[in-house]
């Protein structure tokens, strides 16, 4: 069986997954070499923890603070054709406190609420404007009377009666009776 090697540090620091840790412990029962290496690792770790705190020197602090001050202008940007710098495909784990009712700060929560209200109000206004625009386009007053568009109709009865009378002019055995109820608008120019 393979020795633990680089996994010894993870085992000592308790960073192995559950199954991996079980397999490592089983290996330690049968491998004296790895047991010795683990003991050495633990001893070194305990020794480091037992050291007293070391205060940084004034010079070191001033050097670190100087790094935070504005420096020289940035170098020109590389050409767009240049190969982008490789970036890690991962990001550090978020170490901020979890958000939620108990974790969110009151100021941030209020700002998010205001922003949400604004978004909702803007959406409602946009939707209302769209509906009003569609309603104005669909009103019967300004829409063309295409055959497929239902419109309110008031039949011009007097005109229809006159047209009916005229249509009977070619019939030899029909009375011109509907002429009797026609209006002055039916008056012909005559001869």
């Amino acid at each position: 069986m393979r020795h633990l090697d680089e996994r010894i540090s993870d085992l000592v620091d308790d960073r192995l997954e559950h199954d991996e840790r079980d397999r490592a412990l089983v290996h330690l029962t049968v491998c004296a070499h790895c047991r010795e290496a683990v003991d050495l690792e633990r001893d070194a770790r305990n020794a480091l923890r037992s050291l007293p705190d070391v205060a940084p020197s004034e010079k070191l602090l001033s050097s670190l603070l100087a790094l935070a001050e504005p420096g020289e202008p940035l170098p020109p940007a590389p050409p767009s054709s240049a190969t982008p710098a490789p970036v890690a495909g991962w990001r550090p784990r978020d170490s901020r406190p979890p958000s939620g009712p108990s974790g969110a700060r009151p100021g941030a929560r209020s700002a998010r609420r205001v922003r949400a209200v604004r978004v909702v109000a803007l959406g409602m206004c946009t939707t209302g404007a769209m509906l009003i625009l569609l309603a104005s386009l669909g009103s019967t007053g300004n829409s063309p009377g295409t055959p497929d568009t239902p419109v309110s109709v008031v039949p011009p009865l007097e005109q229809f009666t006159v047209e009916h009378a005229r249509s009977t002019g070619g019939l030899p055995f029909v009375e011109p009776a509907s002429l009797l109820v026609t209006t002055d608008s039916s008056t012909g120019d005559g001869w």
Partner: protein
Amino acid sequence: MSLGNRVGHGRTGGLAALVVPVLAMPLLVGALAVFVQAVPATSRDVGDDPWAVQLLRQSAAAGEHVSYSGTQYVSTWSALTQSAASTSAVVQVRHAAGGQTEISLHDRQSAILDGRTASRWLAGEDPADLLLGAYTVRVAGEDAVAGRYTTVVEAFRSDGSVAARLWLDRETALPLRRESYTTDGYTLSASAFVTIAIGGPATCCKTADGVDPAVDSRDDSMLRWDDIEDLREDGWHCPGSLGQGMDLYEARRVGDAIQLSYSDGVMTVSVFEQSGWLDPDQLDGYDTADFDEGVVYTRPGPPARLTWSSDGRVITVVAEAPLDTVRELLEQLPPDPVASQEEKKDGFFDRIGRGADRVGSWFNPFD
């Protein structure tokens, strides 16, 4: 019966002109009824009388080659109410051979009727075919009208009832007197010449330059059978017949409406189709009648006028015919249920839907 209700507006300017036609008309009607012997309706149903057929064909063509002028009384009753309500008047008639007919009411109001040659005739070759196709005809006797000898021809329905009586001039075959009846013998219309002069000027109803604008404007609006087929494909109803021999003989556009003219040779019905729906709130002066689940709005007239909404169209009927023909039309194009009409109110959401359709049509390359 309100005789001369057109006269009563004082348009003629003289009392004599008001009184004489009012008194003359009932006297004429009564006198003519006494001198003409009616033939019992039950005595027929033996096929067309060839002599009557010949007379009717001559009469239908008489206007093509005979000019005349005269005074005629016209009376019509409403097919809706079948009451005493009627309209009557004495009119001046002037006709030019092969041309138009001008009918003047008290020398003030006039109308020009086009002859058959001015329309796109859709019902066969001869106007007499309408009557001969719908009725059985026979010669009933002889009579005198306006001092001229006439032959009386009767048109019978299949049930034996008389639909019309025609007094045809022996010399010219012109119809000098006409009467039409409903199935129960109720008089629907009547007219007769009081005086008539055969011959006269060869021109009638022309403007100074000899061009009649009425004919020109009608030619563009006339529809042929091909046009009617296209309209049907676009959703217009355009029935070819109303039943009972009422066949489509002329169709044309009137503004945004389609006018369909039907006749059986004696009765006439005009059907006007418009796109849209009928808004009852905008209808004033109409009576209402229920038909199935819908409502028909009526004006008794005469002539009887009815209008209703049917499947996205507004149907308006002007009828000088028994109501049976209109009932058949109502069965073909039933009025929309009342609930459906209420739903067609021009509400906010209806407008939104139509607006969305319009916006969609802007981006539709195939629209």
